[in-house]
């Protein structure tokens, strides 16, 4: 049933689809970022994907486009699941990569988009309150990017041992 939904998506938006696959049993569609909002609205409105399960991103360092924002959707009526991916390019030392926000479609995306901004530095246009959620505001950098070292700490406070 998810495969049927995937086929309907491909039929409805043939120009927006970059590729599809069903590896490991998950039906996936990679779409272009400019068509994101149209596709998402159609998926919610016509195909009944009213539940946004998960919103995350992956950093494929060394590949262009570098980031992929991944949406997992579910239809509460039929139980079918779909994964939609959007590839986002990132310019070195340039402005943050930007994607349209789906908060207006699924309010569940609010904090998940904030987390993607926090961890990867991908901005969401139209998000009501895009600020860091897991890290503190003074933190510089986006930790889940592959070029952020795992142990690079930016401490807010430390003990002063100079008196010993």
């Amino acid at each position, binding site marked *: 049933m998810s495969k049927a939904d995937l086929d309907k998506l491909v039929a409805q938006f043939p120009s927006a689809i970059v590729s599809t696959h069903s*590896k*490991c*049993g*998950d039906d*996936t569609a990679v779409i272009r970022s400019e068509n994101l909002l149209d596709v998402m609205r159609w998926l919610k409105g016509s195909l009944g994907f*009213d*539940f*946004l*399960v*998960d919103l*995350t991103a*992956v*950093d494929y360092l060394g590949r262009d486009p570098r980031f992929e924002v*991944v949406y*997992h959707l579910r239809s*509460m009526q039929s*139980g079918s699941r779909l*994964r939609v991916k959007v590839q986002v390019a990132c310019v070195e030392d340039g402005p943050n990569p930007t994607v349209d926000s789906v908060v207006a479609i*699924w*309010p*569940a*995306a*609010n*904090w*998940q988009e904030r*987390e993607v901004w926090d*961890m990867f530095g991908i901005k969401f246009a139209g998000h009501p309150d895009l600020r*860091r*959620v*897991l*890290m*503190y505001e003074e933190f510089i950098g986006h*930790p*889940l990017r592959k070029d952020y070292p*795992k142990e690079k700490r930016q401490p807010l406070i430390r003990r002063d041992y100079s008196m010993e």
Partner: protein
Amino acid sequence: MAHSPPSNSGQAARTGTSTGPQKMVFGMPTPDEIVSGAARELRSRPQFPPGFGEGQDADDDAPLPTEPMTINMGPSHPAMHGTVRIILTVDGETVKEADVQVGYLHRCFEKEAEYATYTQVFPYTDRLNYVSPLLNNVGFAMAAEKLLGISDKIPERAQFIRVIVGEISRITDHLTCVGASGMEVGAFTPFLWMIKCREWLWELLEELTGARLTHSYVRIGGVAADLTDNFSARLREVLAKCREAMVDVEKLIVKNRIFRDRMDGVAVISAEEAIAYGWTGPCLRSTGVPYDVRKDHPYLVYDRFDFDVPVGSTGDNYDRFAVRMEEIRQSMRILEQAMEQIPAGPFKLDDPRISMPPKSQVYNTIEGMIGHFKQIVDGVKIPPSEAYSYTEGGNGELGFYLVSDGTGRPYRCHVRAPCFILMQSVPKLIIGSGVADIIPTFGMINMIGGECDR
């Protein structure tokens, strides 16, 4: 010392402002009036400052002027569930705005997972939802097996064992949630009884896995060790005792006026809003939506068991509590059926690329030793792919999105944390209610810091 006529000072101290309607009920008599005996008359008559009540609304019910106050709650607070900071703007006792800030336990699970082999990630998954660690273990193992494509090759005994330990973990999760929430609204005895039940279950799991809380028992391809010989008998004993304790707890709090007043009708959410906000698990089921991953997308051997999914009606705190209590009973049903139906057989998939060879081979054969070495150093090599696998965690749909790149370490491991998504709608639940309603709401959402912040 002359006593001036009643001034604004008392009224200003009461409201914090110096403007507003003058309200003074009794005035202090001057010393002359005391001496002259007129004080007795004065005391019986209210004294008003001159000009009072003229041209003003002398209505006693007019509200005093107030300003909203910003209070910080957390990040260290008595609610035992997790470390979270809520910046509240309150008007009197009513919450006007709430800014929930999480991340105080962000231990970088996703970054650590990229540097650890698949088997080394299991201890990190224990510490995600640390009250039901085996459910996280099972979720991650299933994600890795989905990537490998061996989900249907896991031995049946291993699947039954995963279901059994998973359901025990779910019971401990709900026991802790109900007990701690009860304690937060003042019911300390049920807390002690639920912790007592939890101790029995932890002792059982300690016999089986070696640890009380952070078991790391599940492996890719099965589980780490077989069930102990007397596991079935001990489990039956423990479940019988837990059932009695639960009856006792219900006698104490279900009809208790204080508990019901604090939980009934508090933090109500409708089913449509809950779905829009991404709710899953007992919280979603309390609004009336019967979505349970074990029933809707059966995994492991859940389709062989006969159990019900408790569903609430109003979506308030009491429904969440009741759904959790009933889920404990349904988990016990599953456990009894699982212990009857469990077959004999291997507890781990016997594939040298995936599971470690038994120690007798490691120490006696060269293949075993090399296999062991490669497993530890390189890990389970999974060909490049991506998979999202979902199970029913203690709080809802616990999903693991794994991307592999051909090495033995995940390229990306993302956890779909159910209570992270629940927490984003907490402002919606508490705005408009009193400050005291935050505590039972927060308790019944069951936010576990390790899972929310990962």
